[in-house]
């Protein structure tokens, strides 16, 4: 168990801006910048370590909002749990006005939708827009026909350049529990039909980035507090994977490019790249070749 003094020293080191967060994003004027974290709400030391690293990066790469991929609060959900597992670790970011946009995980009480700082507005699923990007927050725990109908309608109505969906369960993963094939069976056809560009999920406590599947980029970013060491496995479908430590992802969208970098708890960059926006295709040609990813 680390001593309180040791923790304070580590926190001071991790949050010290001059130590140079290795920001590889272009920080273009007018770009949409955001943070992605998944499975964060343990209230444990690792969550605080990751949070401190995020705060450190925010000093160099200021972002305006965050996507939470579910399992926002593990275990009991008393007021003091929300304090220990959310408001305290991210206090610096919350005080700056950074907006957290949560999706619900299987460990989350659906009443989290009433918790204002999670910005669900009383709903299990919702959509919001930032710049030229439309985000779709999906409740993958309970994909009732009502929600699927809503998603189909909202995706069809989206006039945004970028369509990004995020939810808890990964449609593709090499991790032990495997992909959520049932969730994939109902969501993927809608994503393909409406030209979703990128999907972020958590649930598996690792980091993975898939090569485009049916034209869609899939990320699993489920290690913002918990870790299942060694739980990613080589696959020709994978573009990158990291399972040695906790991680988070920073993204920047400028025009038709999405720049990203994934950072470990210690501040090391474990993945980076730039994705081209998938062209909006008519529903009749959903299997057209995907746009290529390249490293900057």
């Amino acid at each position: 168990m680390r001593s309180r003094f040791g923790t304070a020293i580590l926190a001071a080191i991790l949050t010290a801006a001059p130590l140079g967060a290795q920001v590889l994003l272009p920080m273009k004027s007018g770009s949409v910048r955001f943070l992605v974290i998944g499975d964060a709400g343990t209230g444990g030391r690792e969550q605080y370590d990751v949070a401190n690293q995020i705060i450190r990066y925010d000093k160099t790469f200021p972002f305006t909002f965050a996507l939470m991929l579910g399992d926002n609060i593990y275990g009991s959900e008393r007021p003091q749990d929300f304090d220990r597992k959310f408001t305290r670790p991210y206090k610096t970011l919350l005080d700056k006005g950074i907006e957290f946009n949560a999706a619900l995980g299987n460990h989350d009480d659906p009443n989290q939708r009433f918790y204002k700082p999670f910005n669900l507005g009383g709903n299990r699923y919702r959509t919001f827009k930032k710049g030229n990007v439309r985000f779709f927050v999906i409740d993958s725990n309970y994909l009732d026909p009502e929600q699927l109908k809503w998603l189909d309608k909202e995706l069809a109505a989206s006039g945004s350049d970028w369509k990004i969906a995020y939810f808890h369960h990964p449609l593709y993963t090499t991790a032990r529990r495997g992909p959520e094939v049932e969730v994939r069976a109902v969501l993927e056809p809608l994503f393909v039909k409406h030209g979703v560009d990128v999907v972020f999920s958590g649930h598996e406590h690792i980091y993975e980035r898939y090569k485009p599947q049916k034209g869609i980029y899939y990320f699993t970013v489920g290690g913002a507090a918990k870790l299942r060491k060694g739980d990613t496995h080589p696959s020709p479908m994978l573009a990158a994977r990291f399972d040695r430590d906790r991680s988070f992802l920073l993204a920047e969208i400028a025009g038709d490019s999405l720049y990203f970098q994934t950072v470990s708890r210690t501040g090391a960059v474990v993945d980076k790249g730039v994705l081209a926006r998938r062209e909006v295709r008519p529903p009749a040609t959903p299997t057209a070749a995907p746009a290529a990813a390249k490293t900057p």
Partner: protein
Amino acid sequence: MLRALDFRRLVLVVSAGAAVAATGCKKEETKPAANPTDTVFADFAKRIDGYVKLRKTLVDSVGELDPTKSQAEITTRATKLANSIIAARAQAKPGDIFTPEFSALIATLIKQEYSRRPDSVQETREDQQDELPNFVPKVNQLYPTTYPLATFPATLLPILPPLPEALEYRIVQNYLVLRDIEANVILDVMPNAVPT
């Protein structure tokens, strides 16, 4: 109010009709056109409507919940609502909403649906129960906050009768559970609903 059955469910429902008849559902001698499945589903809808009406009066007494920064407010309100529901349904017992006829029909539908799924899907469904060891759900019990809410199989939901927004189905081991979402109260349980 429950919506009309979609075509897919209708097909399944018709195929499962025999199971309902086998449970001793009253035979309509004077109205040969009546489908026993429709009767069972209509009865279920009526029971759900009855609960929704009761719930509305209880919600009126504890107040609607709007998004708030205060988790304490959310917890207090959920607790009040749960206590009111449990008190108002103190005599509730398994089968009050999931009647034996409804249970027989649903178990058949679920079994048929499971048999159509490949092993990989069934394994995923079993894995989802791994985090719920030794949890035996009971009527009027609060769903333990220390357990996750096992993801409901996405392809199974469309074959079940739709529920009002305030309610949901959950699977716990081999039980189908009916849960009031905001109050976190288990309203009914159906043992042996899910093949193991």
